[in-house]
């Protein structure tokens, strides 16, 4: 028991690590959660209007129709059809994009839509605001594409008839309804984000602090003295890991308390306490991975400096692959495939599943259970490597 107690004493004698890795990183998580989660639902959503210079070199009905439709969604600016004037409009930020309807565009579009040929393209030049320009370009292409589709459906209709039908369609505004999300749901998503980010906090703090404790107890001369004592190396290792496990539990408790407090999820505890408990259990299970990593690194002889480097780099990579920095849905398929081989991915899955559930039912429990099982497997695999290293080191005195 004294080994366990002294292991904790050693950890507490490194207050700087505790402040940096637990205090600072959890604060960072809170700040990022505020940035990412926002303060709640917005009152209204406004579609951005791009400033477009539309150059009609066709003069057809199709071109006129395009101009009409685009004027409803974007702001059309008139500029002389001269290369210098057009370039100047973009360079001086008078316009976000220049859209040129080339001569013969209308006829070519009608023909292609009815013969199954390739649709003609609009000429587009973009300015500094790439996003607005891309949006405007997309709208123009989509409108042209809609005209072509309608023309294909009305093979014998004239261009005017096709466009007349298009105008009627475009007048039908979609019914938009704003659904006010419940405050609990927002708090749950904020907590989920925070806990996912905390994979970095938990990884780096436990690897560094527990690693320093275990490597201190594993220094060759200290180890020799311990091995000469009437205590089995198994018990020695068990008690020192137990001390570090208490430390890991403390880290998780701190992270969870900060997360619940800062995300405003306190109310969740009464309405969805089981979901929150499952999410925190996922975090605790995840803590086994850095704990086993710290043990393995200490057994392999890594010292303080190396532990810091590995913890930071490893923590960042793991949390990135777990979707803490950028949502996994925005990452490429290859990155997502690699992410499956990290425990953070499964923690993310468990946390989002638990906090996204309306109630804790068998399906939720099964999903979270499988995720935790996979996380535990990671921990066991890493710990096994550490035990092998420890076994080999016992022979080196």
């Amino acid at each position, binding site marked *: 028991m004294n*080994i366990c107690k*002294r292991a904790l004493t050693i950890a507490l*004698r490194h207050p700087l690590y505790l402040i940096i890795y637990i205090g600072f990183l959890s604060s960072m998580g809170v700040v990022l959660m505020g940035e990412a989660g926002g303060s709640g639902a917005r009152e209204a959503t406004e579609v951005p209007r791009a400033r477009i210079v539309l150059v009609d070199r066709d003069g057809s009905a199709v071109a006129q129709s395009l101009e009409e439709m685009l004027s409803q969604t974007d702001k059309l600016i008139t500029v002389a059809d001269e290369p210098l004037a057009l370039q100047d409009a973009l360079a001086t930020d008078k316009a976000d994009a220049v859209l040129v309807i080339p001569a013969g565009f209308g006829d070519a579009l009608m023909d292609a839509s009815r013969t199954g040929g390739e649709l003609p393209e609009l000429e587009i030049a973009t300015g500094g605001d790439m996003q607005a320009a891309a949006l405007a370009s997309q709208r123009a292409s989509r409108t042209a594409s809609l005209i072509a589709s309608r023309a294909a459906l009305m093979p014998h209709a004239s261009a005017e008839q096709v466009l007349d039908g298009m105008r009627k369609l475009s007048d039908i505004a979609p019914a938009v309804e704003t659904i006010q999300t419940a405050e609990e749901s927002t708090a749950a998503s904020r907590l989920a984000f925070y806990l996912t980010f905390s994979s970095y906090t938990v990884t780096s703090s436990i690897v560094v602090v527990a690693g320093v404790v275990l490597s201190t107890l594993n220094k060759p001369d200290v180890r*020799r*003295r311990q091995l000469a004592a009437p205590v*089995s190396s198994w018990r020695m290792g068990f008690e020192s890991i137990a001390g570090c496990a208490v430390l890991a539990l403390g880290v998780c408790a701190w992270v969870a308390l900060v997360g619940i407090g800062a995300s405003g999820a306190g109310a969740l505890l009464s309405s969805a306490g089981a979901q929150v408990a499952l999410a925190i259990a996922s975090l605790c299970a995840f803590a086994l991975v850095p704990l086993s990593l710290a043990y393995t690194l200490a057994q392999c002889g890594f010292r303080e400096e190396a532990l810091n480097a590995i913890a930071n780099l490893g923590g960042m990579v793991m949390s990135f692959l777990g979707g803490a920095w950028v949502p996994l849905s925005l990452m490429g398929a290859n990155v997502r495939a690699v992410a499956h081989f990290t425990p953070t991915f499964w923690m993310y899955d468990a946390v989002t599943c638990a906090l996204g559930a309306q109630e804790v039912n068998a399906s939720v429990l099964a999903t979270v259970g499988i995720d935790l099982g996979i996380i535990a497997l990671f921990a066991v695999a890493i710990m096994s490597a550490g035990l092998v290293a420890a076994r080999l080191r016992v*022979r080196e005195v």
Partner: protein
Amino acid sequence: MDVIAIEGLVKRYDELLALDHFDLHVDQGEIFGLLGPNGSGKTTSINCMLALLTYDRGSIRLFGESMAPTRYDLKRRIGIVPQQVAVIDELTVRENIDYFCSLYVKDRARRRVLVDEAIEFVELEEFVRFRPGKLSGGLLRRLNIACGIAHKPELIFFDEPTVAVDPQSRNAILTGIQRLRAEGATVVYTSHYMEEVEQICDRVMIMDHGRALAQGTTDELKRSIRTGERIVIELEGPSGPRARPDSRASDGGALPTRELERLRALPHVLDVSLAGNLLTVSCEASEHNLTDALASLRAGNARLGRITCAPPTLNDVFLEITGRELRD
């Protein structure tokens, strides 16, 4: 009773033979010195005795029983003070002693008493709240000792405990070891400092290349060699008008070669060497060695300075047995 009984111990590190049919018997209550140069097998033999190392052949019995890694009953009776200071930097002096003592003594109340006694024994009362990083080299060594003896072991291994220690701390350590013996402990003391071994050990074993070359009390060892007396004479400048360059010793000494030869020819003289102005004459034990040597030198008009005459040291024993200096 033999506290330690080792028979025919062989330990190999690949091609290197670290212990070569090593035998050792240590009686209860004695301070036994293992003397030998670095790499002679002292620490390896201790590691084998503590079951920290496996060995290829032979047997080790401690307190009359066979030693093995899981013989915790035997380990409980043993203390070790390793060569390097083996303490935990993050813990205070008291916490360090308590931690290592707790590996042997579970009862907290008893442990508190033992820790206090160990602190008092090594005189670290003023430093109990200090961490090792704040202690001087000598104080660190004392802490290292306290961590090894706090549980009151019956057999204590001191593995070169005075390396890189100032003379004052060294004397304190040696006195402490003698006190431990006085309290009933058996001590195995390894060192390559012959003066320390001569000072505190009841019996000494001289080791080299993993083998026991000789053992006995220091007097027995000294008597076992031919050298019985060592005369050291300081020569003052050139030895008179007869000291011509062509007749000088080739080693550049301040004495003509023929006078060195005359000294060598004296009865009981084993060896004569001249290093700078210091003339060393090694002789067998005899009553007239000094007067014979001085008479010979005066006959050659040598101008003599300080003269010392000393019995052989353990270094002489080692030199005569192995043909090289102990600190090579």
